[in-house]
């Protein structure tokens, strides 16, 4: 129907200057890295909300879609460095999947600036801070119209 869309869910807030960012992180490396940033009292952007998973191998592309559906302006996926996976190969499998998934999203018109992937180890509190801060800045700098196709 071309002439009217009735009653789609509205959203509030979440403007360009204050974007919601959802980070899916593995329990062993990145979550611990974020803990280290905390323990070290490093300061970083408060736009991010972290969802903890056992492993980056558990971070399903569906989570990313869902995060965008629920209004996230940026999604971060972070796990252990290659070779460091607590579960041996979870991050390798997810890397391969995400390489393809990212291509697919890009082809369908999702601005890939809105999705970030990182390897952050338990000792890289500072990397966590810089990844979050840089990602937040990047999201803030994006034109809001370049939003994704999953949420109207």
């Amino acid at each position, binding site marked *: 129907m071309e002439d009217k869309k009735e009653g789609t869910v509205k959203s509030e807030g979440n403007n360009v200057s204050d974007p919601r960012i*959802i980070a899916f992180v593995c329990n062993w490396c990145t*979550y611990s890295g974020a803990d280290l940033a905390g323990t070290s009292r*490093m300061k970083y952007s408060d736009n991010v*909300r972290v969802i903890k998973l056992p492993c980056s191998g558990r971070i399903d592309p569906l989570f990313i879609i869902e995060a965008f559906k629920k209004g996230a302006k940026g999604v971060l996926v972070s796990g252990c460095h290659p070779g460091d996976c607590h*579960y041996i190969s979870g991050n390798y499998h997810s890397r391969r999947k995400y390489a393809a998934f990212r291509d697919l999203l890009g082809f369908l018109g999702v601005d890939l600036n809105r999705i970030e992937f990182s390897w952050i180890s338990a000792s890289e509190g500072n990397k966590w801070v810089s990844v979050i801060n840089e990602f937040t800045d990047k999201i803030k700098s994006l034109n809001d119209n370049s939003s994704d196709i999953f949420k109207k």
Partner: protein
Amino acid sequence: MARIGVFVCWCGSNIAGTVDVAKVTEEAKKVPGVVTAVDYKYMCSDPGQNSLRNMIKEQKLTGVVLAACSPHMHENTFRKAAVKEGLNPYFVEIANIREQVSWVHEDKERATQKAVDLMKMMVEKVKRDRPIEDVRVPLNKKALVIGGGISGIQAALDIANGGVEVLLVEKEPSIGGRMIQLDETFPTLDCSSCIMTPKMVEVNQHPNIKLYTYSEVEDVSGYIGNFKVKIKKKARSVVEKDCTGCGDCWNACPMHKNVKSEFNMNLSERTAIYVPFPQAVPLVPVLDRSVCLHFKKGGKCVKCYEACGPKCIDFDIKDEIIEETVGAIVASTGYDLMDNSLYGEYGYGKYKDVVSGLQFERLLSASGPTEGVIKRPSDGTTPQTIVFIQCVGSRDPEKGVPYCSKVCCMYTAKHAKLFAHKVHGSQSYVFYIDIRATSKGYEEFVRGTMEQDGAVYLRGRVSRIYEDEGKLIVKGADTLSGNQVEIAADMVVLATGVIPKKGSDKVAQMLGISYDKYGFFTESHPKLRPAESSTAGIYLAGMAQGPRDIPESVVSGSAAASKILGLFSKNEYEVEGTIASVNEATCVACFYCQRVCGFSAISRKEIKDRSGKVIKVVASVNPGLCTGCGACVNACFSKSIDVKGFMDDQIYAEIKSLAI
């Protein structure tokens, strides 16, 4: 019906200073399903835990959310408290409002909002928690120790003395590790081999220890209680059981000059068939096929064979794979020295008389290349002046590593002392940054080197070393006096930093344990679980974990051993029940889950009807092998497999709760 309790912790002012805990509590009360919400100064304290327990009891809570510090800190504390009130431990969820909120954000209003979001998120998760029962797996009461240095030896002996069978696997032809290379040990100056050798012999003779030297662990699979290990026993070319260690073979070997002795840090030569050092355990030579003329020249040379009385030389021995099942593993793979050639200005490798700390140990050792007489590698003369340089590589983020190698201060002081004792009238100079001598008797020891043995300690770095008329000219700074100094030395000893043993990262990957960016194995908790690795059933000991001295290495070996003995005191081990499970109704048996499972935890299961006919094939999870990583869930197109504790509907609800 959901009856959720939310507990907001102040953590003193750690949280309450930045987060409006009262607001978080108020917001919690508004969330459907939350029947009570309170804030408390220290939830982890006894009164805090008691209030949690009381509330569970009084309010008949079906789940609790603690808005507090990281789950890595106190999740277990609170789970244990909940269990005491009959709540399944997995109905406890933590909203991390300290490490992720109060400690990292400053704007109180926004921090509070974030804390509220995280709290709501965990309420949604806990509402969808299911009781999870832990899985019990039987234990194979046998342990594997990887690495036969002092910590591995200690671990093996302690375990074996506890009545448990141990496999000790050592890559080198002999056990003994780095410690057996040392001369005397600080701060007591007892002779390393004198205290080490009896332990090595004890290992060899212990009825509970099976020793595999010149062997490597090639593959490890399985899980706590049930590790399948493959040990590669490299071809020694000598039949161990027949060998008497008489030495006729190596005396007969024509390869005298060309092979550098690894044990002597390349300061001497060995033969192709050799024992690394006279007290080697086992005292059975190894034939180094890479240099042996028999192997290099098509079987012509058989001199050792001819010399051997019992005829136990066998050129045809092949590498052998031994398969064993063990219940626990100690990883004590030890350390190497950093590559000194990174410091070109010190001339290591260019000037023969610039040596590493370990080389100097060999020069000091009575069993060393110079039989304990300190001689310059260049001309064999005894040096009168030696410059010791500390922190070579250590504490140097630019060229080396940022960490302190911990033992260098002490061994340099020991070197200077022994030098003074052995060469009368000699002089040593020590360039240092700080002196770290923190254990019992250490400070006194260093002071003795300075005061009684006359070592001159100069605070500063050496900028350059060059050779001039047979002397090594050491140019450096004495930052205390502010002067540039120049010392004409006969020898320079570099107190090189330590790094993990080459290949230890591969060992870690094989074992599935985590390691830090330098390659040191990471403990499960740096303070509270220092002997455990990140993987259940695998324990850590010695320098593989980080720089430490001998007593600490011994302690860590014993700690690992006591953990294993404790583990083996029961017949079963409880594995966390957070594992995958298959929805057999919708599984189509494509087995992508099996392909991505790193633990071989997925197998085929045939569902049969009453007549025994297979009506369906589905994936099936082995609870003992499954670690709950969830890679299978990601691989499953129809979401017919899910992992308990991180179920799809929980993650969905978490994301949903964050909607804006």
